[in-house]
């Protein structure tokens, strides 16, 4: 049952992504993009990442889609609304995209991940096999279970985990990108 729901979500996601990139009306494109982002958030839930699924909804559906809609309404060209949505390399783009997807799928089928049905058979970690059978259990035995928000925060912020500097650096990057976006979009140059 839950497997069927996953495939339904995946189908909706792919269909919404296709619609978002082929529909001519840009507002409809943005709404289909929001739908695809909802689907990807559902896929994140199937990967046991509840916090990242909610972050996906907050940032992509809440922020990026809204900022894209702002951009569409600020740059809408009234004269060109009847023109085509695709450029002259439409057929070549279809060929390239299908070829690239085919290469990735072929590479997956050649890889060691293919054909291994049970996820626990792929796990090479320090825990024993009976613990590996239930990766979602909340009885914490030492460092075994790391699935919650607090573990993610610990991985990002504790200096011994090695990501603290990158975390601070990416916040500086975000701040400078936002300031730079304001400077670029100003009407009068500095």
């Amino acid at each position, binding site marked *: 049952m839950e497997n069927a729901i996953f495939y339904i979500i995946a189908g909706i996601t792919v269909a919404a992504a296709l619609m978002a990139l082929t529909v001519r009306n840009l507002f409809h494109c943005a709404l289909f993009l929001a739908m695809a982002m909802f689907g990807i958030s559902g896929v994140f839930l199937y990967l046991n990442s509840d916090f990242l699924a909610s972050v996906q909804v907050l940032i992509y559906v809440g922020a990026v889609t809204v*900022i894209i809609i702002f951009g569409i309404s600020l740059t809408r060209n009234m004269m060109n609304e009847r023109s085509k949505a695709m450029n002259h390399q439409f057929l070549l783009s279809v060929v390239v995209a299908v070829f690239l997807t085919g290469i990735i799928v072929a590479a997956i089928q050649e890889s060691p991940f293919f054909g291994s049905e049970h996820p626990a058979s792929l796990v090479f970690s320090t825990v024993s096999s009976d613990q590996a059978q239930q990766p979602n259990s909340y009885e914490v035995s030492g460092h075994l279970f*790391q699935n919650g928000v607090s573990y993610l925060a610990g991985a990002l912020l504790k200096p011994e985990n090695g990501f603290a500097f990158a975390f601070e650096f*990416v916040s500086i990057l975000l701040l400078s990108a936002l300031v730079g976006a304001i400077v670029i979009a100003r009407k009068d140059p500095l």
Partner: protein
Amino acid sequence: MNNIPLVHFLYLAAILFGVGMFGVLARKNAISVLMGIELMLNAVNINFLAFARYWNWNSLTGPVFVVFVITIAAAEAAVALAIIISIYRHLHTANVDDAHFLRG
């Protein structure tokens, strides 16, 4: 844990990446190109999380990288929309084929 095989997540990510690349290559409007880039980044996020959960779920490196990718994608979307608005103000179009001042 559900018993969906890992390769199905990888297939979904590959298809989403292909769709996003089609949008980047084929769309005229710069904002649609930006949407395609966002889709490709999300396909990569699905791959990160799938490998983190199925291959080595004891490590948090995959979710941490997803956090970084989401942050950088948000910054990229803001800067890209600022550039698109600036181009629109100068050229009165958002068509990527019309902005070819730097073409050699």
